[in-house]
């Protein structure tokens, strides 16, 4: 079972992000479960949502405490809460920023994990560019798909189409695609350097 925890703020589509991830996994024939950290959070408050992906029925209902991947939609949360809590050493981190982990002051932490699994992506900029709104959830999914290889970009696009329609869907798909390609390209560069 693969477990994802998504952190963000109310209004950033955190819950929708988890739901779309579950739909994408479902479309690939897998079992998936998405659920929010239920609360009465208003716009701007820290919000958490979870997604589990597995090859058999998912019965577990506890929150994701040892995530295999963290999607952090709002970097300002780093100062506020322990978003990395419980992250597996093999885990993935997708962080919404145009800076690097080093620049974010996370160098120390980053060395505890596998560097190629730590990804930063300027998701807010991509969302503003393609959707016109601070909705980083979708480009974050694109980046996650590229980094983890767990779901395909096509499935992400189909999930987007289930949640949105028309221009909004198109914009989101464009944002997800650009994020996906950016991560893929960065990894190829890193790979080339490593070789």
């Amino acid at each position: 079972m693969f477990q994802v925890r998504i952190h963000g703020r109310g209004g950033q589509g955190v819950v929708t992000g988890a739901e779309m991830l579950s739909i994408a996994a479902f479309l690939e024939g897998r079992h998936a479960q998405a659920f929010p950290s239920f609360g009465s959070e208003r716009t701007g408050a820290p919000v958490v949502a979870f997604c589990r992906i597995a090859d058999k029925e998912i019965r577990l209902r506890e929150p994701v405490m040892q995530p295999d991947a963290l999607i952090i939609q709002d970097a300002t949360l780093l100062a506020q809460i322990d978003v990395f809590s419980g992250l597996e050493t093999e885990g993935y981190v997708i962080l919404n920023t145009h800076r690097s982990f080093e620049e974010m002051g996370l160098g120390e932490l980053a060395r505890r994990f596998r560097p190629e699994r730590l990804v930063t992506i300027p998701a807010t900029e991509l969302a503003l560019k393609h959707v016109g709104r601070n909705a980083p959830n979708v480009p974050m999914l694109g980046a996650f798909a590229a980094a983890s290889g767990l779901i395909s970009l096509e499935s992400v696009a189909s999930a987007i189409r289930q949640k949105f329609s028309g221009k909004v869907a198109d914009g989101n798909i464009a944002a997800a695609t650009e994020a996906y390609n950016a991560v893929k390209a960065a990894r190829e560069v890193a790979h080339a350097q490593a070789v």
Partner: protein
Amino acid sequence: MLKQCEGSHAVAEAVALARPEVICAYPISPQTHIVEGLGEMVKAGEIQDCEYINVESEFAAMSVAIGSSATGARTYTATASQGLLFMVEAVYNASGLGLPIVMTVANRALGAPINIWNDHSDSMSQRDCGWIQLFAENNQEAADLHIQAFKIAEELSLPVMVCMDGFILTHAYERVDMPTQEQVDAFLPPYVPRQVLDPRDPVSIGAMVGPEAYTEVRYLAHAKQMQALELIPKVSREFKEIFGRDSGGLVRPYLLEDADTVVIALGSVLGTIKDTIDEMRADGISIGVLGINSFRPFPVSAIRRALSHAKRIVVLEKSFAVGIGGIVATDVRMAMDGLDQRIYTVVAGLGGRNITRASLHRVLRMAMHDQLEGLHFMDLEWNIVNRELDRERQTRRSGPIAENILRDLGQTKSNVG
């Protein structure tokens, strides 16, 4: 058709497939997505020949349901928590009149202190209201149970409450196999009422009954619930024939056969318990689970049959009767009367507190070694409780308890776990 969707959405679709004729509701978290979905479907014409009524209170919701059901319309409503309490008088009235209304209760804690998160206090408060109470383990079952509920309700002329865990199920996206309209039509015949307000054949419904017959009328309400003990498994079997899956029924055993220790629970927590038990079994521990699907009627003999071999029983419940302890546990004790077994009550998950495998492991291992007290509050913070008790001993005007406790806890903890 397989679908990845929100629990509320699945339930709304299932209710729609049952061809309801009147839907009335008043919004309350976490029921809202269900009734919003249905309202939209009615407005969009996806549910035909159906009236959707936005009422001014839950009391009115159940009252409208009473009127429409008595007029022969298949009627649905949904609520939770304070909403269920607000409609109580009409809830009892609906069952007393024998009206086959189906209602979802998106289980949520009761105030004060106000709390929107999940536990079973709301529907448990209505355990004696005369409604049938079915509990869903996951969203597939939540959807299926609604379809079954109409059949059970209408066959017995009794209202049915389908209880599903608020947020944990209502707001969770998971895989659901949505039935087709043809399947549901084959399973669920049109509603033929036993009593109806019809000018062609006038009847008086709801008149006063004195001591000479009240006991008999009430006994018949009980007798109907006893009939439900036969009907619920039968409907579940019929459901399986058409839809091909197990849903509903009275109880659901898991790894029970040789289990020395058996956990009893209701609702979505069964999933987490099963995962925990798999892990314990892997460690060679003899343990199993019995899920209760039908809480009213309470399946006394089915439970007794399933548990007679167990050495100890741990009833894990998301509610409790203040001043005595377990609610489900009390009923289980009644079922196991005369057998030599330890029966533990574990109160867990109140007001949305997470029930984790880690805590379950700890508590169940304590039970296995008979080191658990008879009534155990899982993950209770004793130091917080004791601090407040101390404060009350020391100061007369100690202030509101809930505020004191939250102050003691310090800044509201960021809630990752």
